[in-house]
């Protein structure tokens, strides 16, 4: 039975791969594997000067690039990609995942390694902060926990106007209490509106700044996306301290200073 099963596997697994010639002498190998959205993973083979090369021609990172508002990989994603590169022995070249196949190695082994690397790389999407709306505030919450800064999330406060205002974080430290508003958007078109909304919040809460124990207002910009203008920063600088998510340690120092 085991022999028959193994023979069946040996005879049928290859049928899941489909080959076709495309441009520039590449052979496209259509694999049975899928990117997280259901798109099929294609790999491309070429031989030049006796060297076999297997590559995704950049499709995996192009796919990843198209899924979120982020235009570059985060530090965590970059570290994970480096781990994938090491584990599977692949090369990153001009955004491609590439594998040189030695003459004594099997193409099947190379195909499996590169396909697995492509799958793992595509899954870096799950580490993307802009994948869900709440994930940036989740990341900030995680960071505050790591720094052992006490906080409450989504605090509702009463503004001078009588409106109930929700702020992203209220933090406590022996030296200082702070309110933190997180500004994050993937679009320049929405950036001004976000900044205006936070300004209105700070203005409405300004009574908290003039008490005996004034509360620090912090506007935390998600500057991993290039959507903010200098006007956005200067607008909020008058009413709050500015922090940048690309420099989290400076943000933490602000909360405990």
């Amino acid at each position, binding site marked *: 039975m085991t022999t028959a099963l193994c023979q069946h596997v040996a005879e049928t697994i290859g049928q899941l791969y489909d080959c076709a010639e*495309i*441009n*520039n002498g*590449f052979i*496209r190998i*259509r694999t049975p594997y*899928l990117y997280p*959205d*259901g*798109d*099929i993973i*294609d790999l*491309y083979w*070429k031989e*030049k000067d006796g060297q076999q*090369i297997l590559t995704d*021609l*950049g*499709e995996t*990172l*192009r796919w990843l*690039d*198209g*899924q*979120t*508002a982020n*235009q570059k990989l985060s530090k965590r994603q970059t570290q994970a990609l480096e781990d994938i590169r090491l584990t599977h022995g692949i090369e990153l*070249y*001009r*955004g*491609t995942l590439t594998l040189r196949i030695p003459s004594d190695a099997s193409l099947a082994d190379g195909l499996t390694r590169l396909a697995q690397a492509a799958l793992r790389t595509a899954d870096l999407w799950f580490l993307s902060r*802009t*994948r*869900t*709306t709440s*994930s940036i505030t989740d990341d900030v919450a995680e960071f505050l926990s790591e720094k052992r800064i006490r906080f409450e999330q989504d605090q509702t406060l009463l503004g001078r106007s009588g409106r109930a205002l929700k702020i992203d974080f209220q933090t406590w430290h022996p030296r200082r209490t702070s309110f933190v508003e997180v500004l994050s*958007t*993937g*679009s*320049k*078109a*929405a950036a001004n*509106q976000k900044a205006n909304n936070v300004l209105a919040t700070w203005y409405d809460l300004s009574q908290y700044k003039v008490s005996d124990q004034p509360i620090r207002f912090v506007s935390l910009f998600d500057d991993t996306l290039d959507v903010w203008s200098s006007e956005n920063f200067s607008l909020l600088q008058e009413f709050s301290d500015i922090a940048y998510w690309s420099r989290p340690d400076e943000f933490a120092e602000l909360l405990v200073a």
Partner: protein
Amino acid sequence: MLTQAEFDQILDDPSKRIDGDITWTNSNNTLWSQFRADIITSSDHDLFIQGSYNPVIPALSYILIYPAAGCRIYGLDLGKDHRNPDGRLVGETHKHSWTETFRDKQAYAPPDITAPASNPVEVWQQFCQEARITHNGIMAPPSDSQLDLFL
């Protein structure tokens, strides 16, 4: 979670527009070129569109991203096949469209996209028409220098 009604409203909104020319760039020296453009609407929806083009295959994508949902809600792909959650292959020209059940995993073969992946400008015009986006500007084709191969 983006509801079906909200998605339908975004897609049907005829006020979606892009002002200005679109230029493909290749800032990271990748094989593919890309661009990003903000979409202006008369509603409050914060949207942008992203294009990417890999001339070697060729493969082309135009993707509508809704940051409030945190992901792509609509997109056209040319140059690679797609398998729907029910297991059916859709074809190398397919459109992803948001559904509450499958998010952006469900795709269909769009009859209105007839231009090939090797002609990003014509595909763009066809895409904008179906997605009800007015582009007040010009899209220049990706430059030849981006067609360099590494082999």
